[in-house]
C-alpha cells in the first residue's frame, strides 16, 4: 500500500492525542504507512464552512495542495476532516469556475491545487483490511457487546463521501465483528451525537445525546464504538453532565475503533493512554482480561 499523508486533525492532535496513538499502532501492525505534513485546520465543515464558504474551500484546498505536492493521498482520522477534505476535493474536481477562483487565491501564497489526489477516512481503509485485522487479533473480544456510532460525516452526504450506506451503515460493524466482538443494534445508529448544535445551543445537543444514550443503555451495550473525535468528545466528555441534568446514571465506556482493534491485538491499555478517557473504561478492560 502506498504511503498516505496523515491528517490527524486539530482535535486529535492538540486535545486527545491518545486516539492518534492507537491509530498509529494499528496502522503499523497492518502495514499502513503514513507521514506527516504541516496541515492547518481542515477547517470544520459544521463551523467554518457556515462562516464563509469560499474561505473554507481555500483553506481546505491548501491542505489538499500540500499532500498533492508530494503526490500522496490523505488518510484522515476524523469525520469532520474527511468530510471537509472530500467535499472541497469534490467541489474543485467538478466545478471549474470555483477551482479557478480558489486557485487564484492559492497562487498569491505560491500554491496551486490541480485535483489529483484522494482523501480516505481511516475506517474505509481498515474496511479493506478485514482479513488482516482478523489474523492479527490475538485476544478475540468474544462476549463484548458493542454498539456502533459511525457518525454522520463518515457516510453523509453519500454522493460525496462514497463510503457506506448513508442510513444503514455497515463498515464499522464489520470491523467490530472482525475483532471478534459482538455488535448489538440499538435502533439509533444513524442519529447524530448532537455535537455541532451544542456549540450554540447546549440544551438541544444534550437532548439529542440523551436520546442516543438511552437507546445504547437500553440494549445493554458494554461500550459504544466511534470513529470521530467530535463524537468521541460528545459521548465521552458529556455523559457526566447528562447524568446530572437528567438525574440518571450514564457511564457507557466509549472506545475509538482503533482502540478496540488495538486491544484485540494485545496492545496494553497503558500504551494506548485509555486512562485519559473521561468516562472510565476499566470495566471493559477487565472483561477483555
Amino acid at each position, binding site marked *: 500500500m502506498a504511503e498516505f499523508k496523515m491528517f490527524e486533525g486539530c482535535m486529535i492532535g492538540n486535545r486527545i492525542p491518545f486516539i492518534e496513538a492507537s491509530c498509529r499502532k494499528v496502522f503499523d501492525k497492518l502495514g499502513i504507512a503514513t507521514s506527516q505534513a504541516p496541515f492547518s485546520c481542515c477547517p470544520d465543515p459544521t463551523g467554518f464552512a457556515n462562516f464563509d464558504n469560499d474561505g473554507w474551500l481555500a483553506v481546505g484546498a*491548501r491542505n489538499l495542495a500540500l499532500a498533492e505536492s508530494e503526490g500522496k493521498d490523505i488518510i484522515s482520522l476524523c469525520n469532520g476532516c474527511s468530510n471537509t477534505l472530500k467535499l472541497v476535493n469534490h467541489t474543485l474536481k467538478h466545478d471549474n469556475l470555483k477551482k479557478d477562483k480558489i486557485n487564484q487565491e492559492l497562487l498569491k501564497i505560491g500554491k496551486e491545487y490541480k485535483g489529483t489526489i484522494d482523501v480516505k477516512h481511516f475506517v474505509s481503509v481498515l474496511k479493506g483490511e478485514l482479513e488482516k485485522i482478523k489474523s492479527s487479533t490475538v485476544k478475540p473480544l468474544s462476549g463484548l457487546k458493542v454498539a456502533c456510532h459511525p457518525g454522520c460525516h463518515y457516510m453523509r452526504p453519500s454522493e460525496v463521501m462514497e463510503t457506506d450506506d448513508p442510513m444503514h451503515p455497515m463498515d464499522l460493524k464489520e470491523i467490530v465483528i472482525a475483532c471478534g466482538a459482538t455488535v448489538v443494534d440499538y435502533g439509533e445508529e444513524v442519529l447524530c451525537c448532537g455535537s455541532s448544535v451544542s456549540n450554540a445551543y447546549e440544551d438541544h445537543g444534550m437532548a439529542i445525546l440523551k436520546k442516543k444514550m438511552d437507546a445504547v443503555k437500553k440494549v445493554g451495550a458494554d461500550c459504544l464504538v466511534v470513529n470521530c473525535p467530535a463524537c468521541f468528545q460528545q459521548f465521552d466528555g458529556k455523559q457526566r453532565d447528562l447524568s446530572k441534568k437528567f438525574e440518571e446514571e450514564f457511564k457507557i465506556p466509549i472506545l475509538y475503533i482503533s482502540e478496540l482493534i488495538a486491544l484485540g491485538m494485545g496492545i496494553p491499555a497503558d500504551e494506548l493512554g485509555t486512562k485519559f478517557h473521561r468516562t472510565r473504561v476499566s470495566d471493559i478492560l477487565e472483561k477483555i482480561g
Partner: protein
Amino acid sequence: MATDFEFRKQVLDMHMSGVIKYCYQCNRCTDYCPVAEVTDNAYNPRQNILNALLGFKDAIFSAEKIAIWGCTVCDTCDEVCPQSIELTEIFKLLKNQSVINGDAPDYYYLQAKTIFENAKAVPPQPAIERRRQQLGLPAVAAPDVNELTTLLKNMGIDKKLKGE
C-alpha cells in the same frame, strides 16, 4: 411578506440543476431532523427551504437566530429528501449571509478567529504536547500560520470577524 428577487436568485443559483424549485413541502426533511424533534420545530428545515425559495429574506434573517443556526449539520435531510435537494448547501448560504449581517451565534465568530490566528480551530497546548511525548507520538507538524492568515486576509475574512 415581500420577495427579495436578488436574494431569491442567489438561492436558485446554488443548485445548477435548479432542484430546489421542486420542493413540494412534503416535510420529510423536518420529520427526520433531530433538532426539529427536540425543539418542537423551532428549528424547521422545511420552513427554511420554503422561505429561501420564495425569497422571503426578512422572514429568514429577522427571525430568532435558532431558525437557521439550530442545524446540527448531520446531513440527514439531504439524504431523505425525495427531490434530492441539498438542503445543507442552501442553509450554508443563509448562514454565510447571517455572518455578514453580524447575527451568527458567538461561537462561530470565535472559531473563525481562532483559525485565523492559529491556523487551527484547536491550537496546540504545552500540556498536550507533553502528553504526546509520553505516548511516544511525534510532535504535530506545525502549520505555516502566516501563510494561512494571509490567505484568509486576501479573501476579506478578517473583516467578518468580531470581538477583541
